């Protein structure tokens, strides 16, 4: 069993038109920039994979990561909780032009729906969004005198996530708050593709400290000096300021 793939292109080769893709990260922390870049590069070179449904907390910022995917017109639909960011022009433009679909999901419901997808729970009830526009059309039920909304699981064809350490069996750790949605997405996707800062020998991660057990992981690419989305955005802003001055 060896889930390590030397080539990032090989790792993403199975992602095809129309797929639902979960992408780890919250804002810039945990965004798998190199995997996204490789997807965008392939789309620009071959026209595929297009018409993607992307699941992420946000809808891209600046011109990197998911925003780059949107600018490249690869994304047909976003499922997210907060598509507004300091600089979410890419999504806003396409959305207001009616060129991209949006499914808005409260953040906790998004997390729980993804976990449910990974845990084989097709539906659950939550107090979140009861009585609001978000709940329109969803079944409601009362338990112990309180009202709840029924929400369905979320699954994906592929998850692409960023990890800290990985071994050939797919066990993962994360870096600080970059963990966020990644362990859930790894559970909920048919295939989980990981970019890890470092590949280590099995056993090098203490069994007590494994965050994502290898059963949820399919492929691992080592990207030692991965870009950090927020850092990229700040660099770009500085360049822009400089250019404007």
């Amino acid at each position: 069993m060896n889930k390590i793939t030397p080539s990032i292109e090989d790792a993403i080769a199975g992602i095809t038109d129309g797929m639902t893709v979960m992408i780890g990260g919250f804002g810039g922390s945990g965004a798998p920039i190199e995997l996204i870049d490789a997807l965008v590069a392939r789309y620009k070179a071959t026209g595929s994979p297009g018409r993607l449904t992307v699941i992420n907390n946000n809808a891209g910022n600046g011109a990197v990561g998911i925003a780059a995917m949107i600018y490249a017109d690869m994304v047909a639909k976003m499922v997210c909780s907060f598509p507004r960011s300091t600089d979410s022009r890419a999504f806003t433009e396409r959305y207001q032009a009616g060129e991209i679909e949006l499914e808005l999901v409260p953040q906790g419901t998004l997390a729980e729906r993804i976990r449910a997808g990974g845990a084989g729970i097709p539906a659950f009830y939550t107090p979140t969004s009861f009585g609001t526009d978000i709940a329109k059309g969803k079944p409601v039920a009362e338990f112990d005198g309180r009202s709840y909304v029924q929400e369905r699981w979320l699954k994906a064809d592929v998850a692409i996530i960023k990890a800290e350490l990985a071994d050939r069996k797919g066990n993962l750790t994360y870096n600080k708050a970059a963990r966020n949605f990644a362990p859930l997405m790894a559970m909920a996707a048919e295939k989980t593709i990981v970019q890890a800062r470092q590949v280590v020998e099995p056993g090098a991660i203490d069994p007590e400290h494994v965050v994502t057990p290898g059963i949820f992981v399919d492929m691992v690419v080592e990207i030692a000096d991965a870009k950090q989305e927020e850092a990229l955005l700040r660099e770009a802003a500085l360049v822009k300021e400089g250019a404007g001055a």
Partner: protein
Amino acid sequence: MTVKLTNAQIAWRAAQDIQDGAYVNLGIGFPEMVAKFKPKGREVIYHTENGVLDFGEAPPAGEEDWDLINAGKKAVTLNPGASFFNHADSFAMVRGGHLDVAILGAYEVAENGDLANWSTGPKSVPAVGGAMDLVHGAKRVCVITDHVTKDGKPKLVERCALPLTGVGCVTTVYTSLAVVEIIDKRFVLREKLPSISMEDLQAVTGAKLVVEGACKDLIVPEV
């Protein structure tokens, strides 16, 4: 009615009601200011939706770790005893009722506890984030807000006109003029600025203010 609390003063007042040992989530933006005014000697543990408990202040400029941020995407630091966890566990803390206090901003709060704070209507790109979860999780759901809109219209109303964030969820409202608790679908006035009369306060409030027992003076230092 030129005398009113500044945002910092509203935040200060809300901070006084956070007990020692409380687990607290502060909404993005204005609510984050509450942390600045934690009374000395109290230990408060802050939760952020993106999977950190017990984070501390912002690091000095240039020392940010952008993998260590809060829900507002601002860089933070860690206190000893901090922990990381995934988003489902983070919202289990929220939805499961484990937070003592959540503090949010508002466009409107209704006397029945309804809150509208996420959408000003169909024109903008809708974005809800974690607010809809937070209002149904914490033991106390507090709103901090100016008492009226920029146009002078009441933000405390009989029924919200804007899209709701949550139904019957708000427990306390700290405004630029008053402290109001929501009890049995009524605004119960607990404190008001001494400089404003009951009549004037009622005039800028969109629903009836009920006084039960004493209404104290709302006294806040310059901050």
